[in-house]
C-alpha cells in the first residue's frame, strides 16, 4: 500500500506492506524496520528497530470526516494526521478545499449566546463571528480566513451540537 501521510502539516510518502504478520516499510524512500501490534482498539504497540512506542489514535468531535480531526499520539506528543491514497481522486479534491468557502462549525455542544456579525459583513482572519456557551464558559468562534459572511446559519439562543455548521465564510 502506498499512502500520502500528513503529520502536523508536513507530508510523508509511506509504503507499507504486510505479509504473514511481518511488515515492510519505506518512509520517503528509506527502508524502516517496523513491527506493529494492535494492543486494543486505538492503541498500537509499535517497534521501530528496537525502539518501542505506545501510540494512541483519537478522533476529536463527532464529525468523522472533518479535516484535521484525527490525532495520533506518540507518547505524550500529539500529531494531527491525515492519510490519503495518492492514486485516489478524492485526496486531490480534499487538498484543494482550503480555497473557496469555509464552514464555521461548533467545536462543542452548547448554546449560541451572541452573533457578532451579519450575512454580507466583511471579516478578517481571526475575527470573532459568534459566541457559543458551554459549561458556563463562553467560547468565541473566529473566522478561519479573511472574507465575507456568505451565510449565517446560527441564531442567538439556539442550542447546537458539536460539528453543526454555524456560518459560512467566503
Amino acid at each position, binding site marked *: *500500500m502506498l*499512502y500520502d*501521510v500528513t*503529520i*502536523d502539516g508536513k507530508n*510523508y510518502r*509511506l509504503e*507499507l506492506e*504486510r505479509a504473514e*504478520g511481518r*511488515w515492510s*516499510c519505506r*518512509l520517503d524512500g528509506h527502508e*524502516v524496520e*517496523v513491527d*506493529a*501490534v*494492535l494492543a*486494543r*482498539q*486505538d*492503541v*498500537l*504497540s*509499535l517497534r*521501530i528497530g528496537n525502539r518501542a*512506542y505506545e501510540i*494512541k*489514535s*483519537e*478522533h*476529536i*468531535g*463527532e464529525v*468523522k470526516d472533518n479535516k484535521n480531526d*484525527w490525532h*495520533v*499520539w*506518540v*507518547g*505524550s*506528543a500529539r*500529531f494531527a*494526521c491525515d*492519510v*490519503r*491514497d495518492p*492514486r*485516489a481522486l*478524492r485526496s486531490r479534491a480534499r487538498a484543494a478545499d482550503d480555497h473557496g468557502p469555509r464552514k464555521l462549525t461548533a*467545536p*462543542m*455542544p*452548547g448554546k449560541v449566546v451572541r452573533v457578532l456579525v451579519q450575512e454580507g459583513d466583511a471579516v478578517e482572519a481571526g475575527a470573532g463571528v459568534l459566541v457559543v456557551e*458551554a*459549561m*458556563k*464558559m463562553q*467560547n468565541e468562534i473566529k473566522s478561519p480566513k479573511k472574507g465575507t459572511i456568505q451565510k449565517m446559519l446560527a441564531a442567538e439562543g439556539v442550542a447546537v451540537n*458539536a460539528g453543526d455548521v454555524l456560518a459560512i465564510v467566503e
Partner: protein
Amino acid sequence: MFKKILVANRGEIAVRVIRACHEMGIATVAVYSDVDRAALHVRKADEAYPIGAAAAVESYLNIGKIIDVARRSGAEAIHPGYGFLSENARFAQACVDAGVKFIGPTAAAMNAMGSKTRARQAMERAGVPFVPGTSRGLDSIEEAAEVAARIGYPVMLKAAAGGGGKGMRLVHGPDQLKSSLEEARSEAERSFGDSEVYIEKAIVNPRHIEMQILADEHGNTLYLGERECSLQRRHQKVLEEAPSPVVDSEMRRRMGEVAVRVARAANYTNAGTVEFLVDEQKNFYFLEMNTRLQVEHPVTELVTDLDLVHLQIRIAAGEKLPLTQEDVSIRGHAMECRIYAEDPENNYFPSPGKITLLLASSGPGIREDSGMYEGWTVPMDYDPLLAKLIGYGSDREQAIARLTRALGEYFVGGIKTNISLFRRILSDPDFRDAKLDTGFLDRMLQRKDDQRVDPQAAQVAAIAAGVFAALGASGAAAVEFANDKSGEKTVRASNWKSTSRREALR
C-alpha cells in the same frame, strides 16, 4: 451509624463519597439529572433517583427534590460533596427540618462564615490575624480613600458576598479608586445581588495556603495540616500539595491554632478549611473559611493517613473524634492535579464530548479519584472537572517524579484535557524549586512552551498513522488484537477489513 446516605452531588466527589460509604457498610442513594443517567456515580450507587432537568437549579440545586428523595429512599443523612448545595445554609436547615442529618456544619455556622465581613468581625474578636483593611462594607468613596491612604497602596476591593474572583479589583493608586469601587460594586450586585464591598491591603505575590480542620459535636477541634494551593488560574485552583514547601512545623502549629480558633468562634462542626494568604515574609492572614469538604482533600488524606470522608460521616453520626492533636502527624508529600475537560490550545475553554479512549495510570504512590469512564459523554452542563490524579512520595521530589511518570501513562482520548499543562508545570524549574505564588501559573503560561519533542516522533507518527490505516483500525471496530489467540479466523477478518478500508480510501 447510619444505614443509608444520600449523596447530593455528581462527578468524582459523588463517587468518592459513595466509595467511603460502601467501605463503612452504608448503603448509598444517588440523585441525577436528565443528562447524568449514565454518569459513574449512578452506576456505583445502590439506589438512584432522577431529580429533573440538566440545569442545576432544576436538579442538583433543588432543595425540595433532594429532600423528597431522602424521604422516599429512607436515607438518614445527606452528604453534599463540594459545590452545589454544600455551603447553602438553607439546605442544611431544610435537612434538619426533614429529620435528615446534614453531613457538614450547622446552618448557623455556615451563616457566620458565609458573609466575609460578618465572619471577619467574629474572627477579630477571636484574635485572628487579618490583612489590614475594613472589616465591614464601605459607605462612601471618601471612606475608601481614607482607609486606602492609611493602609497604603496597592489595595484590593472585594465583594462581601463574593467568591471566584467576582467583584474583586486591584487598585494601584488613588486615581483608580473611584472607578474601581464603582465597577466592583456593580459586579458584586450583578453576581451576588449584594453590592457590599470592602477594602484590604493587597499582598504582593502571595501564597495561598489553607488549613484543614475537623471538629466533632463534643467540642473537640483538630487541625490536620496545610495545603499549598498557590497554583491558580482565574482564581481557580489547578494543582495542590501537602505539606506546603514553606511551612515548617512551628508555622504549621501557629496556623493550625489560628484555624482552630476560627472554627471555635463559629461553633463549627465537621470538616472545614481555613484559607490564608501568606506574604513573602511568611506572615499569614486569614482569608475565609470554606464550610465543606474541599476538592483537594486527598492530599491531606495521603500525608496524614486519615480518611476525611469516613471521619465526616462518623462526626455526623455523633461519634467523638478518634484521635487527638498529638496523634496527627504529617508523613511524606502529596500533590494533586485537577484533570479538566478543557482545551489548552483554546484558552482552556471547556471541551465536553465523548471519551473514546481512557488509559488509567496506577503503580506506586498514585491515586486517581475519577468520575469518568471510557465511552461516557461528558455533559456540557456542569463544571468540567473529570478526575484528580494524586501522587504521593516520601518527599516532594519523589511525589513529583511519580506524578510525572503517571501523567505519561494517563490518556484521555476524544476530548481535550489539561493533562499537558501538568507535564509543563511539573517540569518547570521554579516549580521544582517550590518558588510558588498565586501569579505563578499566569506567568508560566505567558512564556512559550519549550518542552522538547523527540524530533523523530513525527516520523514515528507518520508510520503509525499508516499502520492504523492499513489495519483499518482507526476508530473502526476491533480487528486483530495481540491477545486474541483465536488464530486464522481473525487474520482473515482483518484482511477483509483492510481491503474494505482500501476500497473506502479510493
